[in-house]
């Protein structure tokens, strides 16, 4: 196994996970009840929101 690649995966995962974590939490704070309502209606699940943010990040940074 290529150690450098493993190191790179670990590093990238740490960075991206922190971004996703902060952004999804902040969205929850900003949108507040709105997000909660949507979660209740299962229109925006936790997974869906994270996936939405990840897709946007990927697109914005052209990853």
């Amino acid at each position, binding site marked *: *196994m290529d*150690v450098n*690649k*493993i*190191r*790179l*995966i*670990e*590093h*990238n*995962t*740490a*960075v*991206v*996970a*922190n*971004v*996703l*974590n*902060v*952004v*999804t*939490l*902040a*969205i*929850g*704070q*900003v*949108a507040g009840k*709105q*997000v909660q309502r*949507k979660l209740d209606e299962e229109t*925006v699940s*936790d*997974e869906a*929101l*994270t*996936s*939405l*943010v*990840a897709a*946007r*990040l*990927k697109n*914005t*940074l*052209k*990853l």
Partner: protein
Amino acid sequence: MFNPSVLAEAQALATSTAERGIAINSVQESFLDNLVNLSHNSLDTQVTSMDEAGTRFERSSSYGDPELACATHTAFTDESALAVAEIASRNILVARTDALPLIGQVMEQFEQIINPDIPYAYRKRSVVPVAFHPLWSSEYVLGVGDTYADGGDAGQVPAGLILSADEEQFTNFLELTKTGLPAVDAQLANLLSGYEDEDLRRLFKDVFSGGHLQVVRGPYSLTEGWVNDQILIHVWARALADKSPSKSSHNLASYRTGLATIVERSGNNIWHINKIRSNCAEGGVIVLAYAGDTIHVHSDIYTEWLKQEGAGNCPEVVLGASLLTGQLRPATGAELTASGEALVGKWNDYVSVSSRTEQENLNAQARIELFRLIRTHVDKRLAEGLVPVYEDAMAVLNDSIERLKTNFIKDPYEPIRDIILDVFYAGTEVKMFVMAMDEIEEDDDDLEEEEIAFLAVVNYLTDWAACLLVKKSGQL
């Protein structure tokens, strides 16, 4: 602590980027950099599985006690998210309650002043065929013309022959427009059916009450409506001679003399019209009149002329001819065809130059009006204490107006939105949020406002976070 969905998405993205040798770094000394450092530890060299490498950092700690490290990271994450959310909330509030209404207001004001659909001058110019009703070829009308060939010297038509009080009893037009000749009356009924009742009443009043009856002054008098009016006036005047109104400004003798004048004048007009028609047919004259933006053409001859194969005859030839002056304007089909190519070229040049000039004028006017409009808001908001530094706002406004695309009025929303956001919300992220809302609405205009706002929050915060990341090839 990371929830499973965050880890799953992060690992997928990390793996795909690492496969391509791309490193994703946080901007140094940013809060994200701190967060990453808190969560990430150097790799345990015993770990050789990629899957394990992806989640390895979660368990690791460079702070000795894993539980303490985890608590520190979680606390800092929550603190950061709260700070980010507070800033974002302020920007979003300003965007929704102040910026968006202001943009809407300026857009509305701008659209009231500037209409991008220019009523180009060349569009007003048109070729109007004058179609002669079949009655004009009838023996009756030809006979009327011959009878009154010398009627051009008839005196003035007197006013007040039939007063308003008496109009009603004479304005059953179907009844009044009769000659006693069944074939002619059938054609007259057909002619009448092309008129609105209101127009017939106006014509009747003009002539029999107002005393207004124009004479033919040349081909340029011949508009389709006016030509046919002459037949109706003539028939009405003859029919009215047998009736006597109860109220008139005239005694019976004077009334009958007045009607005779109308009969003679309209009859003479009919003679002139017949003469012009016959001259047009013999000489192939198409253009009856160049009357400003309207070119009246003899419908039958014009239609035949257009049908001539290979001659290049088209309306643009006539329109081009209308740009010439006075005697240089051709009238016959042969003259028009002979200069056809040059006339079409002249018309095309005119359209191109005049429309370009009008577009340029409108663009210039739009810039001036937009500047004036936004400056009004700068002044107003300055008085309300919403513009911190007048000179700064005006400098941005001047610069933005300068950089506007020439034809921005074709789609003015984005340029106007950007100017307002740059002038009034400089140094904030209000613009980012408004742009995120517009982008979402553009992608799906079925979304409700609340959904747009929610998705805009997602995009706005993600784009903002993306600014804290740096992409590098194969470097940590």
